[in-house]
């Protein structure tokens, strides 16, 4: 039979017919295309309908409807084939029992068969070999046998059978351990006939006597959770689930009824298609949603497609068809009771392209749970958009689709393609049409969904994603269409819908920032690719809302540029201002680096004054801000902004300080109090020295040395006081001019303060140096004499301690000196201790001031403000929230931006500072203090080299 058709295909007549059909379809397509192209813009611009009358529109709609029906019929007739018997599988139980009755085809292609009055369920391969035989016998002492009527396989891979004799449903887990392999009776049902598993995993049982269909929800331990019943059926026999929810049930000598998922609205096939059934028996629904019905009386099998007229698939060769099943590969299995065999028919010319429904994919075996999960990133602002097509980027390596916008109807496909090409050129993002979006306010419109499916052929994309929202339902249905599926068994896909806030994702920056040049950036982070896609397609979102282009899009709408005239003016003004500033700065820095200011004593002085350091630092900052080079990446931009804000805040604080200082003659007061304070400090020091020269804290000092040291220091203080008094008439003026420097910034003023403190406590520094030097000398002397004592000496050349033989004289002198030094040590040590403590006090005050300066210098204020007010701008990553969900609908996630923590912000964007102090560790500081080495308040040249 197949050969005959094969030959027929090559006759002249057939080829002419083929050409004619193709030509007709092409011309239809072309005509509708050109009409749409001219009509769409006209309908947009005109307010009325032109010369088109109401009658004409209705007529056209009717004609189009009938034409669509004809096209559907032709498509179906081309698609399906009749009476194509592939093989016959004999009854595996043999002829001693009754004929085969129940049949089920699982998703992996194996067939489950039961026969009348035979206590077995056989598992066959698709070619008819017996894989497994499950005896229907209860384990244990009773061991009673039961007779399965019909069989099905649950979501969990368990075999469920309907037992009419015992009036029960039995379930068997073939994956369980051997000891647990037994049939479990889950429920008593009046007289179960047909059995099936629907898309939500519930078991459907047709109750013949009571005329009901029960749907049982089971938990993991096979306990019944809930029972739902559909009453008022006339002898229901076979039941089959519909992939998109709901089921089909056949009534004895009656009709076939279709129930949608709500289990409420039955529609009968005979009235919908105008078909008369004899005695409908087995029913099944294939993955396209077409319903197949076997007729026991007329010995035929009919297919009822979703669109188009019913088709007779098997007209001859059946004796008494009972149960029926169809596989995803386009095969039909009919159990023939009279002939006692299973007949396999091929009914699809080619396996159809399959809309993968989530309901179907959830109903598969756990062992076959597919790993390929399709992720759809959907902008939440588009959720209320009108129907249209989805455009976005397909990231194939992650199997995810980032949807950027929705294009509304009506549109002209060519223009959409042009537009996308333009967008691609500008943004360098591979934007394409990914699928269709239907948002029907009321009931699902059949014609629209059909049309959306057909759009997939105009815009080629693999896979074609279809998202539809019905009414105000939160749960959308989502499916994919694979046109060229190579492996039909493996194509189950789970879909995850991820909602994202387009604006936030566009504006945010992932941290840590990746360098875009590195090729590793692409594969290192999947999220990065998504963020990058949305950010780069900014151009798409910046179109004006009122711009009447050829294409209408829905996406996040920027508020436009109207409100930012001031910003524009500022931008215009900033360019010459920056240029002027750059010029001035270059002059200034040229002056600073000129040789006049850099000869020895001056350069030394500059390097020791923290004010100069701070001024230089700020000069660099100003140069960075005013440079007219565009910031290359985000981190540079942030750095610029941070510097700018830091400068602004600094200057603002400085001016605040200045306004406080110069009001009410505060400078004069300050100067008036400064001299007495300095006097007071000097007096206190004098008292301290007097105290040290006596017997401080009851310590007995070397009186002579004590007096000498005390007088020496007292003289110094006397010098200092006279110096201060000499200076006192000018101090107010000096302070007045120094106070002006606060307009350069608070940090400069603080640095000046630190310098002034250093100058005013110069005597303390001097004392410290004298004390330390003296102490140091003594420590060194003592240590070398200690070595002499032990008959050793320090070998300078070898840098080690060698043994050495000394003369008696040398030893005598050494011992004498050692004793003297040792007894004089407490006196010097005391002086050293007191002055070091004083010195440390000053250093701590200066250190605190410098800490404050560093804080103002390095704090990334702009980033912190951004984090506070627009926390999504600085993203550390994302977080997902699982939204409420429904069985059979895709998993819905909400992607939110996880903002960077404040510590993270400071760490990432901290501005580098110059540090004035050598960063000594505490241990080395203590060692230095003990040995009497000098602690410098400023950067020590020697430390740098080390």
């Amino acid at each position: 039979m197949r050969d005959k058709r094969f030959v027929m295909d090559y006759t002249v007549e057939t080829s002419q017919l083929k050409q004619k059909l193709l030509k007709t379809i092409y011309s239809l397509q072309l005509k509708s295309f050109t009409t749409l192209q001219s009509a769409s813009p006209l309908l947009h611009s005109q307010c009325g309908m032109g010369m088109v009358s109401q009658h004409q529109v209705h007529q056209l709609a009717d004609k189009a409807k009938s034409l669509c029906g004809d096209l559907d019929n032709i498509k179906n007739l081309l698609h399906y084939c009749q009476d194509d018997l592939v093989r016959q599988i004999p009854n595996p139980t043999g002829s001693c029992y009754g004929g085969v009755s129940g049949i089920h085809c699982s998703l992996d292609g194996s067939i489950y068969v039961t026969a009348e009055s035979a206590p077995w369920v056989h598992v066959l391969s698709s070619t008819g070999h017996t894989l497994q035989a499950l005896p229907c016998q209860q384990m244990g002492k009773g061991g009673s046998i039961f007779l399965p009527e019909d069989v099905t396989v649950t979501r969990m891979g368990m075999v469920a059978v309907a037992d009419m004799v015992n009036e029960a449903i039995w379930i068997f887990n073939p994956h369980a351990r051997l000891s647990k392999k037994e049939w479990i009776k889950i429920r008593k049902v009046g007289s179960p006939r047909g059995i099936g598993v629907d898309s939500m995993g519930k078991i459907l049982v047709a109750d013949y006597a009571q005329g009901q269909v029960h749907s049982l929800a089971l938990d993991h331990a096979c306990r019944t959770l809930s029972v739902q019943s559909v009453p008022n059926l006339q002898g229901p026999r076979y039941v089959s689930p519909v992939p998109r929810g709901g089921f089909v049930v056949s009534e004895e000598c009656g009709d076939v009824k279709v129930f949608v998922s709500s289990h409420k609205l039955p529609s009968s096939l005979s009235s919908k298609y105008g078909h008369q059934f004899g005695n409908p028996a087995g029913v099944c629904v294939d993955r396209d949603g077409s319903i197949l019905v076997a007729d026991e009386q007329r010995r035929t099998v009919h297919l009822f497609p979703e669109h188009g007229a019913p088709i007779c698939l098997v007209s001859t060769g059946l004796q008494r068809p009972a149960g029926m099943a169809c596989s995803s590969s386009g095969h039909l299995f009919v159990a023939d009771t009279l002939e006692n065999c299973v007949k396999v028919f091929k009914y699809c010319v080619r396996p159809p392209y399959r809309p993968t429904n989530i309901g179907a994919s959830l109903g598969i075996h756990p062992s076959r749970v597919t790993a390929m999960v399709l992720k759809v990133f959907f902008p939440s602002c588009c959720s209320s958009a009108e129907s249209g097509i989805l455009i976005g980027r397909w990231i194939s390596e992650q199997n995810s689709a980032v949807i950027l916008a929705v294009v509304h109807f009506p549109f002209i496909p060519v223009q959409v393609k042009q537009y996308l090409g333009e967008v691609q050129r500008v943004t360098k993002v591979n934007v394409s049409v990914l699928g269709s979006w239907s948002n029907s306010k009321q009931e699902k419109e059949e014609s629209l969904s059909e049309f959306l499916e057909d759009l997939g052929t105009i815009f080629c994309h693999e896979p074609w994603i279809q998202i539809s929202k019905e009414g105000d339902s939160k749960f959308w249905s989502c499916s994919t269409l694979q046109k060229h599926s190579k492996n039909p068994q493996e194509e189950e896909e789970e879909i995850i819908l991820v909602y994202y806030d387009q604006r936030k994702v566009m504006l945010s920056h992932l941290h840590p920032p990746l360098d875009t040049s590195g090729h590793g950036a692409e594969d290192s982070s999947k999220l990065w690719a998504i963020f990058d896609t949305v950010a780069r397609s900014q151009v798409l979102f910046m179109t004006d809302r009122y711009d009447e282009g050829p294409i209408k899009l829905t996406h996040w709408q920027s508020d436009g540029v109207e409100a930012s005239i001031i910003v524009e003016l500022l931008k215009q003004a900033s360019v010459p201002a920056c240029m002027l500033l750059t010029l001035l700065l270059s002059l200034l820095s040229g002056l600073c680096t000129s040789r006049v200011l850099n000869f020895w004593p001056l350069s030394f002085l500059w390097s020791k004054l923290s004010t100069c350091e701070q001024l230089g630092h700020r000069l660099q900052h100003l140069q960075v801000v005013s440079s007219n080079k565009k910031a290359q990446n985000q981190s540079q931009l942030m750095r610029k902004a941070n510097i700018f804000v830091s400068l602004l805040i600094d200057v603002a604080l400085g001016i605040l300080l200045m306004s406080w200082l110069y009001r009410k003659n505060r400078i004069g007061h300050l100067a008036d109090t400064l001299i007495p304070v300095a006097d007071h400090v000097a007096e206190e020091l004098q008292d301290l020295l007097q105290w040290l020269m006596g017997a401080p804290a009851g310590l007995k000092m070397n009186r002579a040395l004590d007096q000498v040291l005390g007088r020496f220091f007292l003289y110094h203080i006397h010098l200092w006081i006279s110096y201060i008094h000499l200076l006192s008439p000018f101090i107010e003026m000096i302070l007045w001019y120094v106070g002006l420097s606060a307009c350069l910034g608070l940090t400069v003023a603080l640095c000046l303060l630190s310098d002034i403190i250093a100058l005013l406590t110069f005597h303390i520094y001097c004392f410290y140096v004298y004390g330390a030097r003296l102490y140091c000398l003594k420590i060194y002397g003592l240590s070398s004499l200690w070595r002499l004592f032990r008959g050793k000496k320090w070998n300078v050349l070898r840098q080690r301690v060698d043994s050495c033989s000394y003369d008696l004289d040398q030893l005598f002198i050494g011992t004498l000196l050692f004793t003297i030094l040792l007894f004089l040590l407490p006196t010097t040590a005391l002086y050293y201790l007191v002055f070091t403590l004083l010195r440390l006090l000053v250093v701590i005050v200066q250190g605190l001031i410098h800490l404050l300066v560093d804080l103002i210098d390095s704090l990334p204020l702009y980033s912190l403000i951004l984090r506070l007010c627009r926390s999504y701008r600085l993203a550390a990553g994302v977080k997902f929230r699982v939204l409420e969900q429904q069985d059979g609908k895709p998993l819905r996630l909400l992607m939110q931006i996880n903002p960077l923590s404040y510590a993270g912000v400071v760490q990432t964007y901290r501005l580098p500072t110059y540090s004035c102090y050598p960063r000594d560790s505490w241990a080395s500081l203590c060692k230095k203090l003990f040995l009497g080495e000098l602690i410098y308040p400023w950067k020590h040249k020697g430390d740098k080299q080390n």
Partner: protein
Amino acid sequence: MAEERRFRSACGAPITLRRRQHSASCRELAVRGPRLQLRSLSAATSAVWLAAYGLFALSENSMVLSAAIFITLIGLIIYLHFVKIDQESLLVIGSLGIQVTSSYASGKESTIFIEMGQVKDVVINEAIHMQKVIYYLCILLQDPEDPQGISEVVPLFQSSKPRLDCLIEVYKSCQEILEQRKTAPQSNKIK
């Protein structure tokens, strides 16, 4: 599809493990620790106030009392907001990644999301904590340079410290989903 089971933490406090299956490849596991006990709260408060009264009796300065009130209030806020973790949850999404959330008693949530590409494995480890050996679950992160190496270990359920029986439960659930991920690249190669 949520189920709850009761376990004990390493120090014996009762904890509940809540498992929610959102879809075939998305699962949420939440460990809820013991709630804040009124007894311990009142004990801490009264201890602070008694100490404050003692000081007040000695110094006769009413500042001590107001300081005590402030200390208890601020201490309570800090404890609820930064210390006391009410629930730690693990959201495993097959193809996206693993999300670790800890919610504090005040409602603050801190979240880390680890992409599936970075996750090398989820394992149970043992560690010496104080004077005993405890088990903990951790996520091993892949080193981007070295495919065999581990760059970081992220410990899970750090505050509730469930015992091994609870950890095994969580481990199995995680592995079921991670298994799917491993089969995915292979099936791609066959294609």
